[in-house]
């Protein structure tokens, strides 16, 4: 079932066309809205939230027109990219207030605020003013406030912005948990392909206001028929051992790549590794990365060009 629909969506700001007739659907699960700066990601989010009117086309959120009534936003969460947390207020107080403004009664709002802060790992720090939080903690509060009213769908605008690699990994893990365990669908707007690969089920790629590609991430990054053999050392010896057994491989630094490996050849490869004394690190079918997918023209593109 599609949670969001954009139909021939067009929006301009002055002479700049932010979105140029894009049509796509976003299903349940975790979806990445991928694109570089100026691709139209934030404009799309604002249109889905009903904050701005499209110049052309329409949007549908949870089966409703977001411009018709703000009520649809009782089931939508949003964490913006920019700072949005008052420095002098505690996270517990702020979340409880936001839950109330989103339509929860007062007592459940307080309980859910504490509960959500526990889920994002800020239970101990919940009464500290948010001005004293680190960037990672603030990102987690932003996520918690987007979920505090139990939405069906949450928009997260660049949720890993400003985080170090560990913080980024933790945040992506948290988002995966929200999507998988909490049952809340997530739309991540990001320019980081790695975030989408690690976290999302499906992806919508925008480029300069146009739809570049949309689909399931696993489908786009499906396994190829090639086999990759990563070694710590002994790559050249392994290459020779494979050649001696009639197998062809390509050596690039410490990675050997073999095109089209059949079932029986795996035994031969195993023997070659043992015979060459190569220190094996990894042996796996090659997968296309999203970056590879988007650097190649799609079938449709090929047909039109």
């Amino acid at each position, binding site marked *: 079932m599609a949670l969001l629909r954009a139909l021939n969506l067009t929006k301009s700001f002055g002479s700049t066309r932010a979105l140029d007739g894009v049509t796509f659907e976003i299903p349940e699960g975790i979806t990445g809205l991928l694109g570089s700066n100026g691709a139209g990601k934030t404009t799309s989010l604002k249109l889905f939230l009903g904050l701005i009117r499209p110049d052309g086309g329409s949007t549908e959120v949870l089966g409703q027109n977001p411009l018709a009534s*703000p009520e649809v936003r009782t089931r939508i*969460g949003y964490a913006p990219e920019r700072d*949005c947390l*008052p420095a002098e207020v505690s996270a517990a*107080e702020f979340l409880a207030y936001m839950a*109330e403004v989103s*339509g929860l009664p007062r007592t459940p709002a307080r309980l*859910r605020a504490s509960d959500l802060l526990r889920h994002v790992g800020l239970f101990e720090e919940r009464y500290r003013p948010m001005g004293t939080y680190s960037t990672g903690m603030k990102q987690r509060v932003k996520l918690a*406030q987007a979920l505090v009213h139990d939405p069906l769908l949450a928009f997260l605008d660049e949720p890993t912005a400003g985080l170090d690699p560990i913080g980024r990994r933790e945040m992506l893990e948290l988002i995966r948990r929200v999507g998988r365990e909490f049952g809340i669908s997530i739309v991540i707007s990001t320019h980081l392909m790695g975030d989408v690969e690690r976290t999302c089920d499906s992806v919508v790629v925008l480029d300069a206001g146009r739809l570049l590609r949309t689909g399931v991430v696993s489908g786009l990054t499906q396994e190829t028929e090639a086999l990759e053999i990563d070694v710590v050392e002994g790559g050249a010896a392994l290459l020779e051992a494979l050649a001696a057994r009639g197998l062809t491989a390509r050596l690039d630094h410490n990675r050997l790549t073999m095109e089209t490996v059949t079932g029986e050849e795996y035994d031969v490869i195993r023997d070659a590794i043992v015979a060459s004394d190569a220190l094996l690190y990894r042996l796996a079918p090659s997968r296309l990365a999203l970056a590879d997918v988007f650097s190649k023209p799609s079938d449709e593109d090929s047909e039109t060009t």
Partner: protein
Amino acid sequence: MTTRPAEIFDLGYRGWEGQRTSRWRRRHAIWRDGVRISLGLGRGVGAKFASWVLIGLALVPMVVLVVISAFLSPAQEAADEFELPSYADYYDWALVPLSLFAAVVAPLLLCPDRRDGVLALYAARPITSTDYVGSLWTAFLTVCGAAAWLPVLVLFTWNALDASSPDSWLRDNWDIAPRSMGAAAAVAVPLTTLSLLAASFTKRRAYAAVATLAVLLVGSAVGGIAEDSFKGAVADVLSLASLSEVATDTVRWLFADEPQTPPRPGWATALWLAGVTLFMAVWLLQRTRQLVRE
């Protein structure tokens, strides 16, 4: 007795399956927060200081006057010499601390939300920009209106208690109650609207406070110069620039006192005040809509 090892039950994530509140309850949540901010409740001593000192300055003089009057009451001669101010007269004094209160405290309701980017979160909630600013406006009006009305209520109560027959005094003077509410509104509504409008143009509270006071002071200066330098209709029209003067004239009209600016009918002054306030309110709404979209 059997002993069982301790177990931890993690309930995991629990969704909210209860009923969601109406839009009025959501507005009420914003209103309650606005009242708390206006009074500095739940904040540090510094946040409370300006609010309570300025409200105190509007209220305490009346309380002191009433207490003095109460002490002098038994001594008939001294009591005759001591005269409490009229309801309308008191606003000549109270308008100063109330203006300062509006200028200094009202920006706290809007400026931090803009500065900290919280407006983006309000925009994504199931409320409109009108709900947001309307609730904050009502919140500050509640506090400012109460601060404007309480002194008059104290005087009204004292006058009733001090009368030889409180029952008959109340029967004869019941109309003072609605008039005093109207007077409090005539002072509090324009001040609330002006100060929030000023706050909607800046992220810095100090700038908003200065802008509010500048509008009031420059208006008063223009009105004063007009009265001194011109006569007739020109002076009358120019004197309308003074929002504080217009407010106090409206208060006098409401209490059926003589206005300080004689040639203009009271209803015209009140109408002008309502028009200016409405204009500022529409401007404030448009400005907030624009801010939320950003």
